[in-house]
């Protein structure tokens, strides 16, 4: 557990940067990628739930999306700080990734609203699963939409070139990515175990009373 955190922090001193704000890239992008991965995992679990019908997948899908939303929020926050560092503003609509994450963040927040509004049971599990699948379908569609929207939304002067990474930069990035992914995985397992334990204890309590 601690290893992942330590890795993430060690990466920072290893940076070979072109402009110090580049350093943010090493944590912001892995967080974004990890968020995508979590949403994807949530959708896979959702599909498994619908297909196989095993109730375990509901909790796994939920926790995956839960982590994905947290990392998504982190993406937005770190992205905003990076925007401030690069361009001097906290937010810009011209950063496709930021806008995409905003849309996704709204979508997955609604996921939690859905879950809280429904009674526990197979109905809620299935509705959540379907919604999770819609989410991953939304990712590429939204991305396309935002790209197309550049056409008529006020063009700005802010662009960020895709980083042409030199060898050492790439290595740093790779390490950072692995570290963040590990962190997310660990958090996922911990959260899942906690929720499972909670459910089991509740069942035990009912059996004893």
């Amino acid at each position: 557990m601690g290893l992942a955190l330590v890795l993430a922090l060690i990466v920072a001193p290893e940076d070979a940067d072109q402009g110090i704000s580049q350093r943010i890239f090493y944590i912001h992008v892995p967080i974004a990628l990890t968020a995508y991965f979590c949403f994807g995992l949530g959708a896979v679990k959702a599909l498994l739930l619908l297909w196989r019908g095993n109730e375990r997948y509901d909790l796994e899908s939920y926790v995956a999306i839960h982590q994905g939303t947290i990392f998504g929020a982190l993406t937005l926050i770190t992205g905003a700080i990076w925007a401030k560092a690069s361009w001097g503003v906290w937010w810009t609509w011209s950063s496709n990734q930021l806008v995409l994450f905003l849309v996704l963040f709204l979508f997955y927040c609604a996921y939690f609203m859905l879950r809280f509004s429904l009674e526990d049971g197979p109905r809620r599990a299935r509705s959540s699963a379907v919604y999770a699948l819609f989410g991953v379908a939304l990712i590429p569609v939204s991305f396309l939409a935002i790209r197309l929207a550049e056409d008529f939304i006020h063009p700005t002067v802010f662009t960020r070139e895709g980083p042409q990474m030199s060898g050492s930069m790439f290595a740093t990035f790779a390490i950072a990515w692995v570290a963040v992914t590990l962190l997310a995985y660990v958090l996922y397992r911990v959260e899942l175990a906690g929720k499972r334990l909670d459910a089991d204890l509740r069942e035990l309590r009912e059996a004893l009373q």
Partner: protein
Amino acid sequence: MSWSQEELVAATYAVVFVFVLVYVAIIAAKLVRLQRETAELVELARARSGSDRAPDYAASVSGAHEGETGAS
């Protein structure tokens, strides 16, 4: 208020770190609550099934817990 670049970079990593810290704190609180609930349920089980079986279970549970907290 204008921030220097270094401050912003530090802020980014700090934000991530704080998030993780808060998360761990939440998990820790949850763990405490779950331990308490388990202890309650052990009491219930003990009251239910009499004293000969339950104490072994209680001993093994608290022993396991000590082992965990020692390791992590």
